[in-house]
């Protein structure tokens, strides 16, 4: 299958997507931001259709929309209790905008399907390089903020007492999340980015108990999902995203079962 250029592109892109989502997912779960991760992918859909409407590349449209709304959500909802409502409001608005831009751009429904469910055929070499660059940038920022993000995410109360700049960390994290969502949506689709951002990290929590190990396991499980999904998709002609989602869900259920058996609850 590696004789086909689009498959090579898809493998490189998926590998970096798994790396990015596996790493950021650990913090998404620790910060209880699954709902926001899901919302950002819907916003990514709106951004991509905005890109189509205005002639921007879909990825640039997604980056624009997700980064603006990540900051907006961060500013609107410093209190946990207000966050859900703020996210729900922003999510509804952007889904509506996504449909509007698609209709204004006069593109066919299959284009919307590509954005929502992902496509391995659509990604060009140029887009792969942009994706790899963004992914490396995100990982570099994570590296230089690692201990602060880990402390704030896994023990917010302790981090406040140590005078960590919580607001700044929160906005930084949301921006990194926005980038991760945008680059991942191209292959796995904006509806299922959520799968890679939450399930590998959720599984990792049950298997290992230090932050670095969780990162390793989460990235590993994300890689198993995307590589397995690509291979199965290639040989069966069924959608890659279907296989990725199924693999991650099966792994998650298996780790839940493992946790029940080993911890006896």
């Amino acid at each position, binding site marked *: 299958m590696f004789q086909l250029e689009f498959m090579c592109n898809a493998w490189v892109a998926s590998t970096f997507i798994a790396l990015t989502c596996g790493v950021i997912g650990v913090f998404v779960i620790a910060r209880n931001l699954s709902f926001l991760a899901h919302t950002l992918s819907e916003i990514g859909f709106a951004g991509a259709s905005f890109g189509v409407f205005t002639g921007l590349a879909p990825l640039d449209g997604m980056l624009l929309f997700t980064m603006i709304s990540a900051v907006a959500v961060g500013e609107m909802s410093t209190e946990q209790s207000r966050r859900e409502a703020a996210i729900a409001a922003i999510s509804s608005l952007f889904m509506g905008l996504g449909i509007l831009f698609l209709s204004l751009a006069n593109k066919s429904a299959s284009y919307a399907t590509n954005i929502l469910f992902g496509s391995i055929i659509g990604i060009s070499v140029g887009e792969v390089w942009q994706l790899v660059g963004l992914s490396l940038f995100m990982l570099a920022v994570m590296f230089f903020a*690692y201990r602060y993000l880990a402390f704030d995410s896994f023990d917010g109360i*302790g981090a406040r*007492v140590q005078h960590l700049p919580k607001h700044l960390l929160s906005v930084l994290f949301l921006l990194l999340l926005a980038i991760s969502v945008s680059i991942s949506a191209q292959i796995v689709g904006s509806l299922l980015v959520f799968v890679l951002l939450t399930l590998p990290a959720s599984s990792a929590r049950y298997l*290992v*108990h*230090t*932050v670095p190990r969780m990162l390793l396991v989460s990235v590993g499980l994300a890689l198993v999902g995307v590589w397995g999904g690509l291979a199965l998709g290639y040989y069966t002609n069924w959608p890659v995203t279907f296989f990725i989602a199924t693999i991650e869900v099966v792994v998650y259920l298996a780790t839940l079962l493992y946790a029940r058996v080993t911890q006896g*609850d």
Partner: protein
Amino acid sequence: MNMAQPLIQVHDLAQSFADRTIFSHVNFSIPQGAMVSLVGANGSGKTTLTRILLGILKPTSGTVQTDGGGHLTVGYVPQFRNLDRDYPLSVRSFVQLNQIARPWPWHTAAEKRALTHILTETRLTGLAKTPLGMTSGGEKQRAYLAQALVNDPRLLILDEPTASLDVAVKHELIGLVRELNQKQGLTVLFVTHDLPMAREYTDRYLLLQGGQMTTGPASALRDDLIAD
């Protein structure tokens, strides 16, 4: 350790929110190496004063002077931390979170030594690899204590850490802190409404009542001092 030199000196501190005065004309000092209790009924302003000492809240008026004048590293054990049974980090990883002198993932040999040392001091070595969510209430409190102490703070503030613990565990925890205080000269502020505990484990008391502060030796704390 110079016992005469105060670590913290508070002058004429006052705090009010809107038109409600929490306390005013508060003066006290905490000597280096002392273990001092901050007592008072619920709502007397203990938490507010703690937040000022932590630097989270700016007082309405008055000053807090620290020894050396600069920023004081403070370890803090909070009253509540809602970690559920699924909390994934091991005790060791949880304590390590507070080692934030460098940003990147790997820790230096000195940091690892400090971590091992504090786990030993707080008798957590055997539990180091256990997920914190699976430990008992008293063990969790010891982990919070270890995390607060892992970067060697000059002041430790315990904010009613015993409120939800049973009697034996309560004494074990505060006894351990007292041991660290006497053995290593750790300065401690123990915020509590438990007068017998304050009398047994601290040198001096600070009492907040009716917006005023009085102080004295802990042995002079009488149970009828606080009208609930």
